[in-house]
């Protein structure tokens, strides 16, 4: 008697598996076929200018594999070969220059891990709980290790003497795709920690993330991380392009709108258990886990509540928080099988504490679309299933 998986010889223990050349570039095993990016069709008119969501409910650790890191394009993911790639620097520089891809690889290189969060992440939840899954409420985020050249290095290669006082100067960065997506970035940030990245998690960027070169703007909204970057213009004023006036501005209750809301404030979410990742094992040991991040620096602490915010317990950080990068947290509990209202609350090194939805709405109203970093609630039922809810 016993488990036939043990007492009987299984096919995989007897015959062959795949040879080494079966999949020259590996894919996830078929059993993981549900761990994929997903689109919410009703959000946009067409997939060409749209967004999908990272399956954060099914991942662990902090690094997002490129193949399931969310995509957002304004005119589709283009195929731009390295040989056809050109980067122009123009405007208030000493030398207006053109770089090839090969040129970029000859500059001193840097590595850094950063999260990219779309400013609209959790944006559908302003008016109330509506999407049932961490992937959909919080999946416009990914976190990768980038290799590339510091933007400062490139700007200094073009020379900033002509720009004079750099305090009131800007750069305008623009992509090579048909959307010509462009954003203005203050020079202070451009010279601080931005990089022109050509590798992510060790390998070339994927087409959907801007191959062969994208901009990395740590801690700032994803729309500024220009993909297929082809031009950097040094200017004495922001361009006020479509993506920084009609979009990515946050309308308050009185009808005025905030602009230049670049930083992504501290935020966290429980990724499991969650609606797409229910508890299936009944009561007993349970791993509660999630992600936390801040565009203002490193995560210092994450608290977890199981009763909708009445009482909180400090979670365990898998590793000390790193600046502008995802932090993994765990709370290991002995679940008694009763229902929970699960929440997480992040704190960063500036002392900022992730606010509740009520707190945010009191300041911003319901129409801001962007920058919703509220505390999320999952109602975990006795069955182990979970639902996205709001609580008093």
């Amino acid at each position, binding site marked *: 008697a016993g488990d036939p998986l043990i007492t009987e010889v299984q096919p995989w223990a007897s015959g062959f598996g795949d040879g080494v050349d079966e999949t020259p570039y590996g894919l996830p095993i078929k059993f993981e076929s549900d761990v994929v990016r997903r689109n919410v069709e009703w959000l946009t008119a067409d997939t*060409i200018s749209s967004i999908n969501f990272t399956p954060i409910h099914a991942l662990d650790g902090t690094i997002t594999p490129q193949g399931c890191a969310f995509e957002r394009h304004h005119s589709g993911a283009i195929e731009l070969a390295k040989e056809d790639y050109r980067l122009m620097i123009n405007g208030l520089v000493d030398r207006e220059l053109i770089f090839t891809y090969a040129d970029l690889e000859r500059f001193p290189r840097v590595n850094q891990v950063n999260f990219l969060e779309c400013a609209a992440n959790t944006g559908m939840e302003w008016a109330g709980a509506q999407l049932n899954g961490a992937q959909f409420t919080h999946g416009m985020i990914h976190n990768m290790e980038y290799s590339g050249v510091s933007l400062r290095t490139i700007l200094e290669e073009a020379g900033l003497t002509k720009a004079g006082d750099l305090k009131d100067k800007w750069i305008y960065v623009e992509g090579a795709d048909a959307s010509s997506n462009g954003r203005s970035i203050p020079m202070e940030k451009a010279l601080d920690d931005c990089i022109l990245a050509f590798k992510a998690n060790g390998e070339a960027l994927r087409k959907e993330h801007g191959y062969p070169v994208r901009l990395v703007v740590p801690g700032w909204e994803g729309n500024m991380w220009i993909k297929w970057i082809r031009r950097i213009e040094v200017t004495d004023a922001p361009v006020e392009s479509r993506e920084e006036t009609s979009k990515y501005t946050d309308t308050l209750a009185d009808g005025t709108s905030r602009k230049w809301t670049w930083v992504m*404030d501290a935020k966290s979410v429980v990724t499991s258990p969650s609606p797409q990742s229910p508890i299936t094992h009944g009561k007993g040991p349970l791993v509660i886990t999630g992600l936390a991040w801040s565009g203002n620096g490193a995560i210092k602490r994450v608290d977890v509540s199981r009763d909708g915010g009445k009482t909180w317990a400090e979670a365990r950080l898998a590793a000390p928080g790193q600046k502008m990068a995802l932090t993994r947290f765990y709370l290991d509990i002995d679940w008694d099988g009763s229902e929970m209202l699960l929440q997480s609350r992040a704190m960063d090194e500036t002392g900022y504490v*992730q606010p509740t939805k009520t707190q945010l709405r009191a300041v911003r109203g319901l129409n801001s679309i962007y920058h919703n970093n509220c505390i999320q609630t999952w109602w975990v039922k006795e069955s182990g299933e979970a639902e996205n809810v709001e609580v008093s």
Partner: protein
Amino acid sequence: ADAGPFGLGRAATSDEVAAWNLDVRPDGSGLPVGAGNVEDGDVLFADNCASCHGDFAEGRGNWPKLAGGVDTLDHDDPLKTVGSYWPYLSTTWDYVNRSMPFGNAQSLSADEVYAVVAYILYSNDMVEDDFILSNETFLDVEMRNADGFIIDDRAETEYAQFSAAPCMENCKAEVEITMRALVLDVTPEEEDAEAAAQEQSAPVSKTKAEAPAAAAPVVVPVQESALDPGLVAEGAKVFKKCKACHQVGEGAKNKTGPLLNGIAGRAVGTIEGFRYSKSFQELSAEGAVWDDAALAAFLAKPKAYAPKTKMSFAGLKKDSDIAAMIAYLKSVSP
């Protein structure tokens, strides 16, 4: 000037900078010399923009509305359009010039961009129908929401109140669920997840799985093409007008409009998974076929051929364009 610290890259030529340095600023710097009027803009808009943005810039389906929404910014779900929200006219001109029409960006001349922008302003009741927008009249246009923006003030208005020492015990007396996602239930279904779960829970059999029968090679018959390559190339250009909504060729899928593979000779309204308008459902029931005459009629005046069609495209005006389009559709999916 001297080389930079690493001496990498080369000097950009003035032609290169001119080709890419197209952005236009709020003060109008960067605008090329040119002009366009509302009337011309109306025609250009119908041909290039209306299939997504509607004949009067009112927007179709989920595509952006460019007109209307005045005085809605402090309401629930404000309607943000060029007229109600955009603070600078330069943004509209720059965006139309560099990023539109969708799927055929940078195809309009400077004068045409002036005309299209003039029409968008007219649709928003911001100019009269005899208005001419030019690099000289550009700054005369007043944008309604020019003063509607403040610079990010979170550091002053939020950070202090969101930095209080966090409560750990007895933080509130009662907790009640006030809203549930299942009430709205707009979450996409996870079919893949169910399939994977089934695969995983399938009983483990001792029998080794049989190798699947080798798939028979698919023989694609090579058709003798009588199509004029010049006409096909012409049609490919015309098809750019359709690309925002229709796909054709390998891997084509249904988008806003159905995929067009094998359209020539196919029964009308028979692409699986596409929700056709009532007109097309009726034509399909009648057994209509997309022969050359039907294609030509529909392409010339879609709403005359199928009155309730969801396709907002006004139609191709030139017979030569219609012939080219039909040749192109036949060439890419015989």
